[in-house]
């Protein structure tokens, strides 16, 4: 299909505001008479709450003070369920639970006051590890500490062990990871019984916040309004926690009668908000002598923290991605999300898949080694083909050629020559080099029937001067929503991107196009934008005001005439689930995703054997993502995702002490700087997907899945260490190197 605007690197729509410093983030906004708000937390992992004392030399009568008893509606942050309190009442179940909220106009005095609140806490025995949780050392959630479990079965795993030439096992662990968006979280609220509740803030999912506030205040939906301000990065970290901060700001505003702003500082943001779920995966794999996979038994556990929040959904995606892009006749995946007395873990780009993909891709290198095949040959003999079935029994109906992606990635990275060269050179060197890869897939959109339940909506309206406004709740947080939507609408309407206006997400104004998560915005919502734009065009053509082949000026004239004659020129589109996608939620099988992105990533590393420090020297990312809508933005998504994956693999180590993050600062939680990253070379293959706008598939989360295992495999190649854990800090690598020599 010939395209005019799609496939072009149209400049970022809000780029000018961002490079001039004019873009308005939540902390840049003030209201007259505004108060600041802060949060008092229990700081005990598990305790009964006693008396609360307001001490010190503080003029307490000037302060607005909120506790659980000030909540007008239900004390729970609504998500899947409402088990997480907005303000702890009676008990705390993790150290960062909010107990008291304070507001005052002087933020310096406010900080002193926060320290002068003393909460009596009577400790209860906590649990901190997945093992303790599974052993029910203490039951801290439900009847068994299990938020959710899944069982995926394909074929008959049990029969395969006896006939296999080899059975290979391994256990793999990944740590928690902080999203570390550079803009800390924040919200401003106005609230009164007369006007209802309005919040402005940094967030990914306006209607999640809307739902949470509706239940918290017990108000009708039209009395709650949520407005997204310019958002300085999210990566999943602003999917759920903004509901908590919005709730806190709104409660303070409700009680004080004044606007209240809460901005977290970095330490509070890192400690209290969600992080990537720590995981442990056990693999048991049966293979034939010539490298055909016979059976995969996978046991996957994630640590959900103290409340359920999104853990069941994260677990679901991790489970479905656990067996990768391979054709294996017999698969069993058991998985569970368990409770510990840590702050709830949550969404982070990749959403469970980076954890289980790390385990699988690391394990397959070990399987290859055990049976004497090269890592690439083992995978080549098992890559899924069109017409074959994935672990969840989804028949792959799209064109897929992972082997071709692998060949291209190897050619671009010089994989074969380097592998040989490094093997020859490493023996006598204190700097050892290695090259490794991972092959993987990532499903776009909500899992299974998720999109059907979401039933997303998008609207469009034309103005008298020929501009077309797109109304959706999908947020721009840096990934390019504004630009992509304007390209899709402009392409469809044969207009220029600057004739498209993307309306600021505001639940008082835009329909619910669903959360901005799950690599669904371009593919799922973008398709609705395309349909909404087409309907506007068809109305004009059907009214004979416009003929195909029109110019933008003719469009403007036709829109003006239409509006004068017939009133508003608008359209409203609701998601229709493709009829050929079927999902069985009971047996957890079927068409898990409408489309997958496929990829092979190659990492080249060097390891200083004296310090056990690893460095990435080169990185090649080859992926098939359907039609690329904007090459600069798409490459930017992959490069940024790979950088986060490098952090996940090497640097980003959360130190836990009694359920608290002990290194909640940028000085001791290390993300990659400009000095740490290799060239990240990004290549796209484009096989258009019929269900996406102009053939696009989802892209945002993909790069997190394959980066860490490619690096781990490269370090294993360089050093001979059996890498089973990330992050591979020098301390951990030393441990693993010592194990080799022991």
């Amino acid at each position: 299909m010939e395209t005019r605007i799609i496939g072009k690197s149209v400049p970022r729509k809000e780029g000018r505001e961002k490079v001039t410093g004019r873009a308005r983030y939540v902390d840049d906004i003030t209201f007259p008479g505004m108060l600041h708000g802060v949060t008092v937390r229990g700081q005990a992992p598990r305790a009964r709450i006693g008396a609360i004392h307001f001490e010190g030399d503080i003029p307490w009568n000037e302060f607005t003070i909120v506790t659980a008893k000030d909540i007008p509606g239900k004390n729970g942050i609504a998500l899947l369920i409402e088990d997480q309190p907005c303000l702890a009442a009676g008990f705390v179940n993790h150290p960062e639970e909010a107990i008291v909220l304070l507001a005052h106009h002087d933020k310096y005095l406010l900080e002193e006051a926060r320290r002068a609140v003393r909460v009596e806490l009577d400790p209860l025995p906590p649990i901190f590890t997945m093992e303790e949780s599974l052993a029910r050392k203490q039951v801290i959630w439900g009847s068994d500490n299990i938020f959710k479990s899944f069982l995926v079965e394909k074929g008959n795993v049990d029969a395969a062990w006896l006939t296999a030439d080899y059975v290979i096992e391994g256990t793999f662990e990944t740590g928690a990871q902080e999203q570390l968006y550079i803009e800390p979280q924040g919200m401003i609220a106005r609230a009164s019984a007369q006007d209802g509740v309005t919040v402005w803030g940094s967030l990914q999912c306006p209607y999640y916040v809307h739902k949470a506030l509706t239940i918290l205040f017990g108000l009708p939906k039209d009395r709650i309004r949520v407005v997204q301000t310019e958002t300085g990065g999210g990566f999943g970290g602003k999917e759920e926690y903004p509901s908590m901060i919005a709730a806190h700001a709104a409660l303070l505003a409700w009680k004080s009668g004044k606007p209240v702003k809460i901005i977290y500082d970095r330490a509070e943001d890192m400690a209290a908000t969600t992080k990537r779920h720590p995981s442990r995966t056990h693999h048991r794999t049966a293979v034939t002598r010539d490298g055909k996979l016979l059976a995969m038994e996978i046991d996957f556990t994630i640590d959900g923290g103290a409340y359920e929040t999104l853990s069941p959904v994260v677990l679901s995606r991790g489970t479905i991605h656990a067996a990768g892009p391979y054709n294996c006749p017999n698969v069993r995946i058991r998985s569970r999300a368990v409770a510990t007395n840590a702050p709830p873990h949550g969404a982070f780009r990749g959403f469970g898949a980076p954890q289980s993909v790390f385990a699988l891709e690391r394990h397959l290198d070990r399987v290859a080694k055990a049976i004497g095949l090269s890592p690439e040959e083992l995978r080549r003999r098992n890559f899924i083909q069109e017409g074959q079935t994935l672990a969840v029994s989804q028949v792959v109906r799209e064109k897929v050629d992972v082997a071709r992606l692998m060949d291209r990635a190897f050619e671009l990275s010089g994989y074969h020559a380097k592998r040989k060269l490094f093997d020859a050179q490493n023996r006598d060197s204190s700097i050892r080099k290695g090259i490794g890869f991972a092959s993987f897939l990532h499903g776009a959109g909500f899992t299974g029937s998720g999109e059907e339940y979401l039933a997303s909506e998008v609207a469009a309206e034309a103005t008298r001067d020929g501009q077309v406004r797109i109304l959706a709740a999908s947020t721009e947080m840096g990934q390019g929503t504004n630009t992509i939507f304007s390209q899709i609408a402009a392409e469809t309407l044969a207009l220029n991107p600057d004739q498209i206006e993307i309306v600021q997400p505001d639940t008082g104004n835009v329909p619910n196009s669903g959360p901005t998560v799950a690599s669904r915005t371009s593919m799922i919502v973008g398709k609705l934008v395309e349909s909404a734009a087409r309907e506007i065009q068809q109305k004009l053509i059907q009214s004979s005001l416009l003929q195909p082949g029109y110019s933008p000026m003719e469009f403007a004239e036709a829109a003006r005439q239409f509006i004068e004659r017939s009133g508003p020129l608008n359209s409203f589109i609701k998601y229709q689930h493709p009829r050929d996608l079927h999902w069985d939620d009971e047996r957890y099988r079927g068409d898990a995703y409408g489309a997958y992105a496929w990829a092979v990533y190659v990492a080249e590393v060097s390891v200083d054997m004296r310090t056990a420090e690893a460095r990435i020297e080169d990185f090649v990312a080859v992926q098939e993502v359907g039609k690329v809508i904007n090459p600069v933005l798409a490459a930017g998504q992959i490069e940024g995702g790979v950088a986060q994956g490098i952090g996940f693999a090497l640097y980003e180590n959360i130190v836990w002490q009694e359920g608290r993050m002990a290194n909640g600062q940028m000085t001791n939680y290390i993300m990659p700087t400009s000095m740490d990253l290799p060239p990240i070379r990004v290549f796209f293959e484009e096989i258009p997907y019929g269900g996406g706008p102009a053939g696009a598939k989802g892209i945002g989360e993909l790069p997190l899945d394959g980066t860490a295992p490619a690096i781990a495999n490269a370090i294993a190649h360089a050093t001979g260490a059996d890498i089973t854990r990330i992050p591979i800090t020098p301390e951990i690598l030393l441990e693993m190197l010592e194990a080799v020599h022991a």
Partner: protein
Amino acid sequence: MPERARKIPIRCEVNGQPVALEAYPMARLLDVLREELALTGTKEGCGEGECGACAVEMDGALVNSCLVPALHAEGTKIRTIEGVANGDCLHTVQQAFITHGGSQCGICTPGMILAAVNLLARHPRPTAAQIREGLAGNLCRCTGYIKIFESVVEACRISERAE
């Protein structure tokens, strides 16, 4: 009520304009710029000098304004992101960030652009290593820095063409 320090008068130049204001001597320059002067383009990312989102130029040197006490501003010339463009005419670095994808979420962008402008003032034709080093004090979580490097290279190219 806790005893508080007294505000002191401070005179300096911000984006070419003389400024007289009162601030607590140990107030952070970041807060003075944002709250007293409404220059909200300067961002707070960490408050401890790690991320560079609050970077401004002070007498030509790049500083993290979250670590600079207000009293240090006395008599200095300060440039913030609001002073980088010439009216509506963007600086070449700003233009290059738009066309080459150097800005995603935008929160690190003001500090990053000041770091890049400051680098190019010192090294008009920087090597790849100089670009990496010049931007090493500014963290970006979105881009993996690749498009930022490309933007800086493009800005040099535009400047050379203009010469």
